[in-house]
């Protein structure tokens, strides 16, 4: 579970987040929507502890996994080696078989598992990062613009995977500009504008066009 209560953050004299409160329960996917500079990535960095809030409290229950917009891993290692190495960092020793099973679960092609990461597409790297999170048995997933640069099929695969994770009990917070992705993937949408939470609603039954209309109204 992720809980933010009255979070404020400023960079110098410029406020980035103002009195933000959010909650993502287990089994739920919350899409954080907002324009550039709205404070989405800052929210993730605060939850990860990379930044400290000026005021307010953040509570995260469970192992946290972070999937950045551009997943950067070590290009000189294969996907499987990256997975095992990162899992080991988190205190989990994976056998080759366990590693391959996890990569198969995130639908990484078998032939790519032992190939060096330098030849991977963005979607493939993202899958390795999710496999790393799975290896850690993470219950909280933070994804920053996960669909940027992905083709529709890859977005669909990602949505399926995230839904599966939520069904398994994960709390998922993702930031995006992609309204279509939100419409098929999220349970709930929160709209940020200039660091403030301006709207929050359930997605159920709304398509991308309706979301866009709501977004424009909120802004």
């Amino acid at each position: 579970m992720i809980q933010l209560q009255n979070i404020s953050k400023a960079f110098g004299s410029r406020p980035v987040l103002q009195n933000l409160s959010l909650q993502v329960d287990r089994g739920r996917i919350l899409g954080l929507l907002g324009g550039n500079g709205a404070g989405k990535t800052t929210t993730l960095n605060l939850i990860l502890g990379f930044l400290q809030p000026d005021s307010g409290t953040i509570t995260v229950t469970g192992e946290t996994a972070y999937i950045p917009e551009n997943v950067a891993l070590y290009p000189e290692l294969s996907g499987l080696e990256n997975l095992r190495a990162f899992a080991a960092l988190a205190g989990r020793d994976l056998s080759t078989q366990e590693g391959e099973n996890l990569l198969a679960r995130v639908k990484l092609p078998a032939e790519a598992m032992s190939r060096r990461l330098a030849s991977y597409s963005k979607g493939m790297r993202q899958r390795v990062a999710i496999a790393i999170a799975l290896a850690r048995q993470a219950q909280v997933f933070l994804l920053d613009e996960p669909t940027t640069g992905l083709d529709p099929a890859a977005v669909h695969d990602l949505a399926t995977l995230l839904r599966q994770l939520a069904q398994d009990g994960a709390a998922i917070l993702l930031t995006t500009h992609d309204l279509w992705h939100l419409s098929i993937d999220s349970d709930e949408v929160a709209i940020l504008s200039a660091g403030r939470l301006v709207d929050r609603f359930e997605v159920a039954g709304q398509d991308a066009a309706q979301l866009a209309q709501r977004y424009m109204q909120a802004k």
Partner: protein
Amino acid sequence: MKALWHLDWLRLRRQAATWFLLGGLFLAGLTAIYLGKKFQEQQQAEISRLDAQFQAQCDRLEHRYRENGEHSGYWSYYSFYPVHQPPRPLAALSWGLRDVAPFVTWVRLLGLEQQLYESSLANPLLQSLGQFDLAFVLGVLAPLVLLLLGHDVLSRDRQLGVLPLLAAQGGGGLLRMLAARLLLRLLLVVIVCSLLFGIAMIILQLPPGFDTFAWLFIALLGLLPWLAITAIIAARSRSATGSLAAAMAAFVSLVLLMPALVNLALSTLFPVPEGLELTVRQRQIMHDGWDQPRQPNYDRFLAERPEYRKWPTVPEKDFTWRWYFAMHEVADRSVAELVNQHTQHLRQRHAWSQRLAWLSPPALTQSLLSGHSGTDLDAHLLHLETTRNFHEHLKAHFFPLIFDETHFTAGATKSFPRFQNSAPAPAAPLNPLPPLLLAALLLPFARPRPVLS
């Protein structure tokens, strides 16, 4: 920590630069060991030839005066005696001053000071930091490899974009990551250094005792300040390019600039009269003696040498060997103050250079290693002292015979004194504190920038 090492090792072993740097260090070390062996062999060969050379000289004297013999003064004038300081076994690893300061000095009964400084100490090219011995490889090149392997352990990941994902794994923060990565690189460098030292032990047949391993211990301790410097650069740099520039600046400053500045400061603070100046002064006084009344000079000699008062006078016109050798000793005495100043200033310089070596880790390591190898300035001054003592011994042997106008005949050289006390210079006491303290002083500055800096 094990997991961090595993990840790091996987990456390191696939980078050509790792093997290039470690391989280069290894090859440089092998070259230094080879050169050290040659250096040691040359010195030992030179020392082992001394007896034969001395004997050949005696044979020539015997041949020259084989008919009727000759005054002992002639025999003494034409005989040279080698005084030497054998190298410690470790000298092959750390030449110190042994390639610029004489370790064999041929002396004869004349004034000593002019003979001592025939080869000068002040050869700036040879004295600059960087003789290619194993001490140079371990004290200067190994730190360079450590710097090059470690300067970008965080900035490279920062540039690659991996750092946030790494930090999000909960591996214990950047400081732990920095420590793990640098310790792995230090371990690799230590393995190469230890391997080189093992090879040196076999090739140079170094005795496997405390003294020998203490040398390696000092050399490895010398890496600690560099580890701290690498950690500071790695922790504070934003980009790999910036950290490389900082690493090179640190290396050049500490290896070249700082020793040069310290040397300049010490030369200014403690001017040492050159050996040449002493030689010229001594010879000038001695030559002046030929044009001066002889008895006053001889009286000056007797004033310090009451044991020769049973020969109270010298003729003013005729040449006598006792006047001649007495005049040499008086000339020696007349530059005694200058000699004393020379030695004192050298010692002061040495003491200050050891203190100021804290400003330059390679100079500190080299200073400790040459001290432990018996090749530093103390060893050279000991050789000068030994030579002075032997010269006194020669005078004590020959002066009574010369003053008594003794004629030597065939076989006289058999009783000529020979230098016996051929012990190497002792090792300076082992002091591991300076590199440890230096590292401890620097390490607190190695605080990593935040992930999102």
